């Protein structure tokens, strides 16, 4: 997809929230949606099961208005976290400009986090995208849970953030860290504009 269209003065970024099931990807989108002024609200498409689990994916188009003369749109997607929705994840990942990996901070979810993170790398590779250069940030969600239930930011860094990408502690349910994460990934995506060589290798 065209990231920056100078001719029509449009910036469109596709950002995919990736992570294990129930880590809070859809919650992130819901919080963002709730904060968007009414006049800017698009329609959030959420295909969820009866038990509120993402069946296919969520899609939130964010029309940010004109920024520096560019009509700026963010398209936020989530993938279904459950292992058996592999095909959907691949599909949603296509053409992504940036990825937010939402990890569940609960200690017992560590294996799921790692498995999903590996799955992300594998899927990026399958799409012909270099996992080392795709803009990526980590969000350690559910940091509001009792200390004894969760891993600290440092511990999660140790387990997941071997590339040293930006990471954000979050409590998506209450909105903590949600916009920081979104801004982090948006900045990384925009930064790639400045280095066309890297962008071209995608």
């Amino acid at each position: 997809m065209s990231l920056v269209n100078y001719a029509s003065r449009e910036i469109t970024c596709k950002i995919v929230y990736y992570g294990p099931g129930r880590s809070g990807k859809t919650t992130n989108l819901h919080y963002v949606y709730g904060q968007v002024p009414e006049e800017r609200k698009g329609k959030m498409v959420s295909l969820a099961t009866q038990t509120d689990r993402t069946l296919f994916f969520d899609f939130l188009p964010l029309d940010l208005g004109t920024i520096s003369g560019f009509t700026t749109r963010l398209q936020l997607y989530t993938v279904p976290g459950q292992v058996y929705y592999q095909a959907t994840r691949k599909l949603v990942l296509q053409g992504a400009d940036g990825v937010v990996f939402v990890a569940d901070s609960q200690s017992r979810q560590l294996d799921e986090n790692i498995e999903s993170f590996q799955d992300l790398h594998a899927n990026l590779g399958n799409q012909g995208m270099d996992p080392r250069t795709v803009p990526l940030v980590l969000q350690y969600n559910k940091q509001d849970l009792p200390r004894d239930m969760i891993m600290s930011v440092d511990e999660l860094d140790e387990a997941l953030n071997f590339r040293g990408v930006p990471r954000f502690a979050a409590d998506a349910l209450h909105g903590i860290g949600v916009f920081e994460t979104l801004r982090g990934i948006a900045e990384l995506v925009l930064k790639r504009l400045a280095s066309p060589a890297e962008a071209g290798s995608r």
Partner: protein
Amino acid sequence: MALDVRSRFDTFVVGAANRLAVSAARAVAQSPGAAYNPLFIYAASGLGKTHLLSAIGQLAKQLQPDLRVEYVTTDELVERLHQAVTRGETEAFRQKFAELDVLLLDDVQFLTGRQETQSELLRLFNVLQRSGKQIVLTSDRPPAEIADLDDRLMTRFSGGLLVDMGTPDYETRVAILRRRCDERDVTFAPGVVEEVARVVFANVREMQGAINRLIAYQTLGEGDVTVESVHGLLGDRGNGAGHQRLTPKSGEYESFLSGLAVAVAQHIDARRVKLVELTAEWRTQGYRTGALERALQSKETTDPDALVKEFEHKIARLRALEQELVALDPTQRGSVQFRDPAALEELERLAETLRAESVPPPPPDGSLLRSEFEVGPSNQLAAHAADAIVEEPGRRYNPLVIHGGAGVGKTHLLHAIGNELAAASGGAMTVACVNASDFVNELIAALQDSAIETWRGRYRRVDALLIDQIEMFAGTERTQDEFFHLFNTLMEAGKQVVLTSSRAPRTLTDLDERLRSRFEAGLVVEIQPPDRLLREKLVARVLANAGVTPSSEVLHAVAGLEMPTARDVLRVGERLADMAASSNGRLTSADVSRVTSVRRSTPVHRATPSGDAHFGDREKTVWDWPDLSGRIIEDLR
């Protein structure tokens, strides 16, 4: 309006809530028109918008004293516009604002319902932005929330950098209060300032009002303000009644948007943006910008500046070519190719062709004038026809064919017509006057150089075509063919054609019938051998030119001589002039007889006409050489 000298960057307390706005404002002041244009700052009342505007103006003036900076509130702008309209000075109003380098416009939210001011501002915006002048705007709300704001203004307001300023955090509030105390040279007991900072105020202005009250209390000798007395002294304010909290959780979305705006401003390729802007401008000028648009879409484009430079160069070339080509060929005016850089090569070729075509065909000989063409009964018909043509070229006699024997003055009359036509039009008419054999040679050269189209173009663009000795076309199939088409083209366009021939056109059997019939369709006039009157006039002219005034007896004698061509007459006249020169300007009938005897004693060597048409041309060949004795006598004289 004058800027408030106290409102500078160094008196503005920077905190997290306004850091972005201050950075942008400083960047704008340091390089107006280059960083963020326009810069739109929005914040609730009392948070420092006007202070920032003033700071921008002062820093910009400090760095570049020659800058024309104008600070104006929206209300004042409206008022000034109304005054200008009332006084009929709208143009002066526009002119004044259009000449600014930096326009600082405060409180644009008051544009609501001011349609005329909005229209005027839109116009001003376009003018200033086109010339790279800086515009800074403030408002208490973002452009999208200004009611009744023209869409075009809204997009322009949002087209640069949009930054907001939030309410200051506690630390910033303390810093603001401390600075105010320093300015007023007042020292409060420890903890007082911090306590005031904790009190709830709607904005910084109100907070400053509160500290002013405390300062007044303390400096007026009412006793020192203590932490405990703060709330009592500030009354309702101190209790926070009726006010919202100073540090409400400001909209996360807006904060996110501001941050993203900075990231976008940092990372978009300014050179590409410039390319986009120029592309749009060129497109509005009617130029085809497809190549630039494709380049913009392409990731391969690594140097937009080079593209801009190349395109600018092409446009400059297109403009130059348009000017040149329209001058060469007015029918090219308005051609869409002049707006298409891809057509540049084609236009260069066209220019080359037109330039070659524009080399005018041979003009008439300037020395053969109508005023020197003497008229007698033998040539008066031709002379009258010539004059009629000069009067109304292309209308009266077209074509005019003048025929007659060699030396009777056809060529003179032809060139004279050409000169008269050119003179009558003030030089505007392109008159081609060419000998038929030269015409043939030009065609051959054009064929040789594969420049036949250029050759055709040269002749088709003339206003009058005069060809001498048309009989020379005999035996030249291609020339006759080309001439046939040229003749038709010119006749259809109402251009004058004059031809001379040694014989009547109907007898030119070597020429195509289609040509002969067309020659006959105009006026065919014959010039007879010079009559007596003409002979007399010609000799009189030659002698007059030599400063000799002959007696009527001499002229009578000369006119009585038998001379078949005007050239013969002129030659006799010249000899008489020579004789007059050697006899103190006096001529007698005897002199005429002597000239005659010399002529008679001169045997005429008639060269055998060869097959070459040139040698068959009596006019171009010297037939009458004096014999040896004659030449010696001439030399001795």
